[in-house]
């Protein structure tokens, strides 16, 4: 998966969790790459996917749409998708889109992995 200049992504498997940690921004150009990393996490057949967004400075609706798509796949396959570490600006996008109550959002990675 070739990195877009604005985004790098780290993928880990911790226990039965797949942890995706993007860094940079997830907007129009970066969303396809982010989707590929989420697909890799899904293919690992985890009990949960943790998306650590603490290093994401900016996200708009292409990024949010990618996460909505991942959430739908998670529900269909009966595992959890947990978002961690949303900055004020990123959280604001979820709130404006009324999605902050749809996703499972926690403050820390430890809480997501507990």
């Amino acid at each position, binding site marked *: 998966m070739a990195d877009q200049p*604005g985004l790098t992504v780290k993928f880990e498997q911790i226990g039965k969790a797949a942890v995706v940690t993007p860094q940079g*921004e997830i*907007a*129009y*150009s970066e969303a396809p790459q982010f989707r590929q990393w989420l697909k890799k996490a899904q293919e690992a057949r985890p009990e949960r996917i943790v998306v650590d967004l603490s290093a994401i400075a900016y996200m*708009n*609706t*292409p990024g*949010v*749409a*990618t996460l*909505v*798509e991942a*959430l*739908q796949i998670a529900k269909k396959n009966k595992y959890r998708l947990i978002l961690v570490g949303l900055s004020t*600006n990123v959280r*604001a*996008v979820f709130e*404006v*889109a*009324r*999605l902050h109550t*749809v996703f499972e959002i926690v403050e820390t990675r430890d809480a997501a992995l507990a």
Partner: protein
Amino acid sequence: MSPSSRPGAEAFPTPARNPDLTLHMLSDPRFLSGARSLLSSVAEKTGLSSTSCAQVALAVDEALCNVIRHGYQRRTDAPIWVKLWLLSSDSRGPGIRIVIEDEAQQVDPCEIKSRDLADIRPGGLGVHIIKEVMDFAEYEKRSPTGMRLTLVKYDGPSPDRAASGDAS
């Protein structure tokens, strides 16, 4: 207050002067980040709060994404103009007016609307976000071709919003 009950175009008249800044860009996604940063930086220098600046940047980004994806069908060589006026109001503080124009296929402005947010699915959120974070957002057909989106954002709440206690 819902976006549909906000003040209309008459509350945000077009300034009787040329734009304070005009950006002519191609519909290439590589320019989105730069355009967003430029507008946000200008908004910050105008005196808008950091929250308002982030909202302006988000709205402009969503609007430009829509032009590239839906208007130009992902063509990367088509023109987009972003025009900006600095505003000031005694009651509402500093503000910014942004007009985004293109030469894409025209659509009925009534057809450009946000989707039902209760319908949880990817996509279709951009127009909702634009209307939600800006004080005024209006699509219209541009003459002779293309579309025009006018956006206005003040730091302070509009009189109607303040009266209703909705200052978000």
